[in-house]
Each structure stands twice: as C-alpha cells, then as structure tokens.
C-alpha cells in the first residue's frame, strides 16, 4: 500500500548503503532534485546509480558523485560541459562507468520491470559498446544481447499522484519515470500535487499505482526556474 511521506528525507530514509538506485530525469526535466538532495543528506553510500547523465554543475547527482557516494554509474551521456565532478572522479579512478546507448538503457530498464531475462537489440552491434557481449545475426541483421537493469530503488518525479499511487507526468518530464518505477523494488516519487483517489482519469494514468511505493509532495517553486544553460557536447564538424 502507498506510503505518503511528509518530507523528502522521510521518503528516501530506506535507501541503504550499496543500493542500486534509478534516478529519473533528462536534463532538468523530470529530475527529482529534492529526493536526490535528501539522499545526499541521508548519507547512503557505495551506491550504484542509473541515470541518463552523470550529474551537471554543482547540484543533485553531481554532488553525490563529488562526495564519492556513487561507486558505479550506469548512463548514456556522462560527459557534458558541466560534468566536472564526474570527470574528476572518473579520471581519479574513483567511479566505475558502464556506458550504455540511451535506447538500450531505456529498454534494459523496461525489461527489468517486465520480467524479460534479456533481449537482442540492433543498437551497438559492431561497435566497441558490444565488445564482450553475445551477438547474433537474425534474419540478416546483427543484434547484441542486453540484460535487464533491476534496482532496489527508483527516485522519480511526476506531476500528480492520487492516494493509490497512480501517476501522471508533464510533457518531456515523463522520460524515464514510468519504466524506472516498474524496474525498482521500491519506487519513491516526488510530485507537485496529491489528489484524492478517483480524481485522475483512468484512461490518462501513465504509471499505475501498483508500481509506486512512496510519494512525497514537494511544493513547486513559486516561479519556474530558468531553463538550463547546459547543452550536450556537440559533434565537432
């Protein structure tokens, strides 16, 4: 049954040392910043973190990495113009990196939630990211066998929850939320609003409550924060 936590600290209190933690968000959209801050304050260490990136600037996941609380990160795009804390930890050999093409990352997370033991994907075939992996040619096309990414916890952000944990998201902030909620043993969700059960249209539920364990309401900022200035590294032409 759903736990409604009073604070972000309370919501993440169960995250233990050595846990594997999926963290939602792509850029700032859908990033559960208050939950990550609470995780930082909570002190859990030796974490394996799964996120699309490896932290930006001096906030959130970047600070977890700066504090050396992340033993390993599984992500698709660690290197950004402002990923200096990751860069430093990586160059110092103090964080392990598993680099995964973004679509394989998403599909591997989805596979964990869906009970799939492994799947053959064309992405990465013939590249160095398939080195050491089982490959197979099926109907003339090359595929790589990829495995599910199971996790102990997911920290995600949604727009709204009802009291049985049904979630709706907002625009591109949906990104990894639904698949991460399903792939983790415990999904911890920060939302802007908690409504009564029955107030979310059953046709519009994106994450059914069965996947959600804890929600916490975080007051949205009075005025929207400025858009992030950081952009991903562009290919040198």
């Amino acid at each position: 049954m759903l736990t409604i936590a009073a604070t972000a600290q309370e919501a993440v209190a169960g995250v233990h040392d050595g846990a594997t933690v999926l963290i939602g968000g792509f850029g700032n959209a859908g990033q559960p910043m208050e939950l990550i801050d609470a995780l930082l304050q909570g002190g859990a260490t030796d974490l394996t973190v799964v996120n699309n990136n490896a932290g930006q600037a001096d906030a959130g996941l970047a600070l977890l990495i700066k504090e050396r609380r992340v033993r390993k990160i599984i992500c698709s795009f660690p290197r950004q113009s402002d990923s200096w804390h990751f860069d430093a930890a990586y160059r110092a050999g103090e964080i392990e990196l598993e680099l995964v093409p973004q679509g394989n990352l998403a599909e591997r997370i989805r596979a964990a939630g869906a009970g799939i033991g492994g799947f053959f994907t064309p992405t990465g075939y013939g590249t160095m990211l398939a080195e050491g992996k089982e490959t197979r040619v099926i109907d003339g096309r090359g595929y790589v066998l990829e495995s599910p990414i199971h996790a102990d916890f997911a920290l995600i952000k949604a727009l709204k929850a009802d009291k049985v944990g049904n979630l709706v998201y907002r625009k591109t902030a949906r990104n990894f939320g639904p698949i991460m909620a399903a792939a983790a043993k415990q999904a911890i969700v920060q939302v802007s609003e908690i409504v009564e059960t029955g107030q979310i249209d059953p046709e519009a539920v994106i994450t059914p409550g069965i996947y959600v364990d804890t929600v916490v309401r975080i007051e949205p900022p009075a005025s929207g924060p400025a858009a992030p200035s950081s952009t991903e590294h562009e290919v040198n032409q």
Partner: protein
Amino acid sequence: MSEKLSRDALAQLVARDIKPGSYVNLGIGQPTLVSNYLTPEQEVTLHTENGMLGMGPEAHGDQIDEDLINAGKIPVTELPGASYFHHADSFAMMRGGHLDVCVLGAFQVSATGDLANWHTGAPDAIPAVGGAMDLATGAKDVYVMMSLFTKDGRSKLVPECSYPLTGVGCVTRVYTNEAVFLISSEGVRVRETFGTTVEELQAKMDVKLLPPL
C-alpha cells in the same frame, strides 16, 4: 553550383530533400538547423528522443518551460498534434524503424555507410554516446551532415572508419559543404557538387566516387 555551401545553405538543402509527411529526428548540434528550413506544406513531424513527437521551434522568453526540452536539453515548443511518451516507448519508435529520416553529424563515414560520430578514440577521452547508436540503427534513412574535409585537409568520407563506430552500414546519404553523396550497395555516388568537380574531389579522396547519374 559555383561555391561551397554554408552550414545554413546545407541545412536548407537537406530540408528540401525530406519527403512531405515524413517523421524526422534531427539529433543535436548542426543538424537541428534543418528545422529552420522545413516548410509547413511539407508537414514534417519532428521527433525528439527524450519523448515527444510534434516538436516545434526553440522556445524563447515566456515560452520557456523546463518540462519541455529537446534531446540537446534546449527548451522547445509543442505543435498541434504533438504527443508525449516515456523513454522506452520513444526509443522503441526509433529502433523499430518508424522514423523516416534522421540527420546526424559525423567524425567519419565509410564508403559502406559505417558511421563514426560518438567517440574520438583518444585514450583520455571520457566517452558519451547518448542516443546516437539508436538513431543510427533505427531510422529508415540516416543522413549525415558534415564538412567534407578536416581542417588539415583529410576527407571524412573514408574507405574505412578509423574512429570507433556508431553504427554499421547505416548511412544512406552524406551532405557536405562540397558535395552530396549517396551510399548504396553499388558504392558511393556523387549526387551534386558545390564549387568543385567530381574529379577534384576524387583527387583528394581515397573513396572511389561514382559520377552523378
């Protein structure tokens, strides 16, 4: 054409070549310029892999919404007929072959359409791949936009890539400032040149070029 193409002129050319009604992903960086030249009559729908179809132009001022960004994390807008989906659904759309075209930058493209655009291979580089491999393997047609030569004059269209690959045999067309190349099982054919000739290009390239049809 009498002179080499600017980035914008190249983007315009790519835009003109995209068939009406196409679903298109423009990656990040230079290829996103293409969106500036798509006309409403083309009814092209833009996909962004972070979970949206029907992406509109870059957002400015009051339009900026931190929940509405593209794959380059730049604030964008939403057009009528848009839809949102989660990351697995979004990449399923790419990987399942539903996008008609994606346009990507490149370090190198090989004569058989191999793409190298994610890693310089430098031993101290921190690698980052993002959705490049998914786009390269998923779209029906992969167009590359790049300058044809490096600053020190070496062709980026090569017999075989020396940089780590993004995808194998995936590129079907290469748009460069000096020429457009079509890659197929018959080889690399020059479609058109800009301020140069096939002969001049061939003299500077190791890839065997087939002349325009």
